[in-house]
């Protein structure tokens, strides 16, 4: 951090000012002039929070994607299918048992199993052949999409939100002050906050596991040099399978999350594959903090865009991607 400030004082200053402005926009009571210029604070705050929570969902999908890529150089274009599959499993479990939490566990386990199968049957056979892997996974994603369409139909499924999560919660952020001087606090959907908190916990846990445990050490070593790691006697294939299973399981969990606050239907697989590709390209292929940053940026851009420039909202995310590719093609937080 301090090295960054020393090397790029101008950028650091801009970043600090931007953060200060953002904090002021979030915490201060807006003067009337500002409200007139860019609309009510409630709308702005909601858009920011939505962007962050949506970023949480994107992170869940993209972190699995980037983990798999980082270790194995596998571009798994069937990742979106794993997301949708997890969502459908979650829906089936939550309607059958009525338990929202159980649906996460089952979705994780089942998608992880599918991930293991993918790794063993497909990727192990074509190790190191990027193009073949890409083509095969595209093909698989089409097959999976049709199988799921056949099994679940084209309906929209929503995973039932448990009762204790329905409805809004009041946050200690003032959106406006009434004429009587009484402050109005921001009301925000509980379920989104919980989901965001969960994705932060998962993200931090993943970072800790990668950086503080033996298994994490092996994985990091594998990212740097697979062959040497294998030569030291680590059973690399086992590590691959485990990482693939975990990454796929995360996509499954994300599917349940997505099914809870959005909905599941054919086509979602492609949408989330695209989202995680954009996130990973922006953040940097193979980097977990990069996936977090990318997800945050893309989530915020989508939500703020949909409020302030609705006509061009779709373009914004891709503009960001183009900018990143032009200025820092390896991604914002990539190491190499």
């Amino acid at each position, binding site marked *: 951090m301090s090295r960054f400030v020393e090397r790029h004082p101008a950028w650091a200053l801009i970043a600090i000012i931007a953060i200060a402005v953002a904090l002021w926009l979030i915490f201060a009571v807006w003067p009337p002039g500002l409200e007139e210029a860019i609309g009510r604070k409630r709308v702005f705050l909601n858009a920011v929070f*939505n962007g962050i929570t949506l970023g949480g969902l994107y992170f869940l999908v993209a972190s699995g994607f980037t983990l798999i890529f980082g270790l194995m150089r596998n571009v798994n274009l069937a990742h979106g299918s794993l997301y949708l599959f997890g969502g459908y499993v979650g829906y089936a479990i939550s309607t059958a048992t009525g338990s929202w939490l159980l649906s996460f566990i089952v979705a994780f386990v089942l998608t992880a199993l599918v991930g293991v199968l993918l790794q063993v049957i497909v990727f192990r056979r074509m190790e190191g052949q990027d193009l073949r892997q890409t083509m095969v996974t595209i093909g698989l994603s089409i097959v999976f999409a049709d199988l799921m369409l056949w099994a679940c139909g084209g309906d*929209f499924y*929503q995973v039932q939100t448990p009762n204790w999560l329905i409805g809004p919660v009041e946050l200690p952020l003032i959106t406006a002050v009434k004429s009587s001087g009484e402050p109005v606090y921001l009301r925000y959907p509980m379920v989104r906050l919980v989901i965001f908190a969960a994705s932060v916990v998962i993200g931090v846990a993943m970072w800790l596991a990668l950086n503080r445990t033996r298994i994490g050490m092996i994985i990091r070593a594998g990212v740097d040099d697979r062959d040497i790691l294998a030569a030291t006697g680590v059973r690399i294939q086992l590590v691959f399978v485990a990482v693939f299973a975990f990454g796929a399981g995360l996509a499954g969990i994300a599917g349940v999350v997505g099914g809870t606050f*959005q*909905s599941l239907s054919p*086509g979602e697989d492609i*949408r989330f594959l695209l989202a995680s590709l954009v996130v990973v390209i922006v953040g940097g292929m193979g980097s977990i903090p990069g996936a977090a940053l990318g997800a945050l940026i893309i989530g915020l851009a989508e939500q703020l865009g949909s*409020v302030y420039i609705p*006509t061009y909202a779709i373009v914004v995310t891709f503009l960001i991607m183009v900018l990143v590719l032009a200025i820092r093609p390896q991604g914002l937080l990539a190491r190499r």
Partner: protein
Amino acid sequence: MSKCSIGLLALSSLFLSSAAIAQEKIKVGVTATLEGTYTVLGEDGMRGHQTALNVLGKKIGDKELEFIVASTDATPDSAVRAVRKLIEQDKVQILLSPLSGDEGIAVKNFAKTHPELTFINAASGAQETTYVDPAPNFFRYNMDGAQWQVGLGKYAYEEKKYRKIATVGEDYSFIYTQVFGLVLEFCGAGGQVTNRQWVPLGTKDFASVIAALPDDVDAIYLGLGGADAVNFLNQYQQAGGKAHLMGGSIMIDQTILSSKGNAKNALIGTIAASGQADTWEDPGWQKFVKAYQDAFPPNKRFPSPSLLATNYYDSTMALILALRQVNGDLSNNQAKFKEALAKIEIDAPNGKIKLDSNRQAIGTNFVTEVVDDGKGALFSKVVKVIPNVNQTLGYDPAVFSKIGLPSRTVPECKKY
């Protein structure tokens, strides 16, 4: 050797038989949105189409109809691609296409490049399709989005006493047309539309849109469909939204009313208008509902046909009846068939339909209210039936043309 000769024999007989059949077939290309946001709508459209075939049969004199289905995703280019494929590869002679508004405008323009063929609109409802520069070989037996809103504005103003409303709609031609019809009537009655929000088709996360909804309105009009509508309702419920709602024709429709989960319950009591009402007691309608229900097992259909099923049923019906009138004669660039189509008046389940000089339907419209049938299923209950709705919505054509074409900001909220 014997195996081989049997195989050859089988193969040649296959060719012979297909050649023999080919002479007696009339090929019809059908498109539906079987991908993307409107998947559910496309699927139910195809159910309506199948129901019509069950009821009317596929025989035209001594010829038989053959249908080839192509999938689109509600974007204009996907529709043109599908139609082009049907014409160039499958050599269809008649098209039953497309489903969605923007697709309709694109296919209509494409129809002009194939004047020898006949295009029958399946379900799309943008006004521009038949109002601006219509194609002489494009026929539409369903009303447009504005016609489908007739009666709603007045009902909201006079019966529900709504004075100020805001609208949220998908950003494309069909919803422009719907809001056009609503605003004309509601503002004409004296109401105010304070805010119109447009979201891209296929929006998943509506939380910010919901936050931006104004508080000081009596009701919020929702012009959404398919997955977008379900997502909106889900997130609206999570955000604790409590406003009165009004709905467009594909919002208050079985595609949404029978979605899984309980978000749809926010719609109970919502008023809407459409080219059909689920609980209409007309015997023709009831017969159609029965035919639809009998054609598919309960888990493969909605409790009652959606607007899309009805539209596909009506357009398939017009196609078959007109073909029978001319006894399947498609000679001379299908001239006789086109003439029959233009003149035919069909006794559709949702009221009589005839075409105007632009080959646009004049039909019956319904104002509805969403009710719970007591067992958790939602239906649109008929409140008012308005017959003979034409494309200029009863306005003098000269006045109507001054209003302008439906867009994000047209019409202005005033009395024309």
